[in-house]
């Protein structure tokens, strides 16, 4: 019999801290406070701008986590929902058509539009197998980009300029710091919402689908509708992030919504830790901020190559991510760690056949 090693002891400590009010409320509150004070430490507007775009991408990573992390559905055209949001604000809040709607109305409308698009797309995509959804979403991502590149509504490849900034009634956001505080608040709200969703019946059902769809279905989980719901909810943050993106950049064009953007968001979720909101936020911030000092060097052109390599290595050696979710109760199933996702032995591959 082995005595518990340092890892197991550390794990015990983490478990105890997670259960304690200090771990549950005080530490996150302190972390948010530190994050809120960042603009007073960092004077450079450049770095705050970097953090702004990192937070926007983190919003999307949190959204994609619903599909990829909880339900185990791969979406490779996630940037399309981002584009839908960005173009909505570009069209409804710019001199292009001289329409200037209220920012927050468009913010929620864009979330809804992205969600509906994802829902409709998932109907044919979920048809038979998960890998069809991946292909359908790639195709959708490309189609949205091609449309944006050619339609006169989106001013084709030129893009739309002079987009209105974020505003609260008469107050307009002028500095990168304003955006930072608002984005931080959005991220915190999203983390709370998703954390609660994770532990709800719906969240448990999603994770049951991911671990073993057939078993979940036989336990009475409505797998099809729950998967559609997961696609719908996952896309909402992307639409909202698109509106924030258009407002911070004041310019949108089709080049901001390529396949590489979709890949990057997938990488954030995978590297950070699937199904754990803290891990996803960590992954998002790491992947957006770390490459920044390398801009212009050789590593900049090799960035996507490094992402690719990172994805492969993560899948082989640590598929659960750097900061994986802690599962309550059952830690192992069929001799495998829960969360590493056990493949349901399909009948076609020689499983149990009645």
């Amino acid at each position, binding site marked *: 019999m082995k005595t518990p090693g340092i890892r197991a002891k550390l794990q015990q400590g983490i478990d105890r801290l997670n259960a304690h009010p200090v771990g549950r409320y005080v530490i996150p509150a302190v972390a948010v406070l530190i994050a809120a004070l960042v603009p007073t430490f960092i004077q450079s507007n450049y770095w705050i701008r970097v953090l702004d775009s990192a937070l926007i991408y983190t919003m999307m990573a949190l959204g994609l986590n619903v599909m990829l992390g909880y339900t185990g559905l791969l979406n490779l055209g996630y940037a399309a929902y981002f584009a839908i949001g960005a173009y909505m604000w570009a069209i409804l809040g710019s001199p292009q058509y001289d329409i200037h709607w209220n920012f927050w109305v468009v913010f929620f409308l864009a979330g809804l539009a992205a969600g509906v698009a994802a829902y409709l797309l998932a109907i044919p*995509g979920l048809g038979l197998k998960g890998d069809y959804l991946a292909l359908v979403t790639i195709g959708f991502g490309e189609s949205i980009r091609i449309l944006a590149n050619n339609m006169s509504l989106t001013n084709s490849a030129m893009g739309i300029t002079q987009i209105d900034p974020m505003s609260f009634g008469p107050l307009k956001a002028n500095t990168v710091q304003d955006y930072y505080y608002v984005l931080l608040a959005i991220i915190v709200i999203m983390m709370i919402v998703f954390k609660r969703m994770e532990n709800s019946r719906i969240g448990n059902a999603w994770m049951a689908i991911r671990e073993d769809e057939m078993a979940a279905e036989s336990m009475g989980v409505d797998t099809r509708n729950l998967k559609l719901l997961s696609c719908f909810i996952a896309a909402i943050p992307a639409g909202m992030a698109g509106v924030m993106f258009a407002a911070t950049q004041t310019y949108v064009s089709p080049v901001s919504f390529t396949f590489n953007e979709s890949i990057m968001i997938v990488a954030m979720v995978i590297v950070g830790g699937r199904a754990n909101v803290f891990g996803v936020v960590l992954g998002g911030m790491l992947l957006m901020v770390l490459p920044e000092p390398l801009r212009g060097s050789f590593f900049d052109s090799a960035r996507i190559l490094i992402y690719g390599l990172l994805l492969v290595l993560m899948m082989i050696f640590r598929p659960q991510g750097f900061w994986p979710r802690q599962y309550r109760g059952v830690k192992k199933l069929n001799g495998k760690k829960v969360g590493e996702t056990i493949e349901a032995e399909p009948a076609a591959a020689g499983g149990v056949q009645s």
Partner: protein
Amino acid sequence: MDIFFQQVINGITVGCLYALVALGYSMVYGVLKMVNFAHGELFMLGPMFSLFVLQAMGLVTGRLNSITGNPSTPLLVGLMALCFLVGSAFAALIGLAMERVVYRPLRNRNAAMEISMIAAMGVSLFLQNAAMLVFGRLQKGYPTMIETKFYTVGGASFSNIQVFILIFVAILLIGLSYLVNKTYMGRNFRAVALDRCASGLMGVNVNAVVAFVFILGPAIGAASGVLYAMQYSQVYYLMGAVVGMKGWIAAIIGGIGNVKGAVVGGFLLGLFEVLGGGYLPLLTGGNLGAEYRNIFAFVMLIVVLLVRPQGLFGKRGIA
């Protein structure tokens, strides 16, 4: 009518190449029940590497990388064969390495589908960008080898390269169908595709079959890449991404995992896309142009998934 015949000829040529790429996806899917995302990159690496070899041997000159001097016909045929062999061998090597280093550990762990898909996507990004760093990020000329001649029959014209592609693909398909249906290895392949676990119990060496698929699929993919590069006389590190996706769509249209379906799906997709791209500007009075061509494949995919999700030749109910 002339335009119609012209479009049909072009569609069949494109369809041939899609069919070959779709075969690679379908074969891997048949055996491993996974989509090998990186297949499009093998399509690109074939012509890329063969051009690299030609350059290293000093056989090409100029910005268009045309063959140096005025070579005789036998020499050209030899060079063409060299391109196919070198490209296919290189792609097969990469394919085999990919299987050994990435897919086999995942398979042994019985990893979930989305995990192997993300890994495959990582491999694809890695190969694509490695090609960009090694071979350069600009489009490069590719030697056409055959002097292009056009024939006109009943108002539609076609080039000798198109004829060559058709004959080449026909020979490849006949050879492949012989290999799959009449040989010992082919029988093992069919057994593993039917039921991996049971064929392993019956004494089929599953790993050998998988290795065979990862040699054959990439080799065929690379050969179609060389054909593609010859027809459009250029290579580009991103060329595999678009064609790879089309091949995947073609495989699903035909019924993924089904060799016959992949071929039919490829031809259908090529025809539909070229006809659609050709007629859309005419029908809409120029409002919607040929740039929407790439959306056609996607629309076709959605329609097939809604109407017949198992594909044209797929069987219903296979999970």
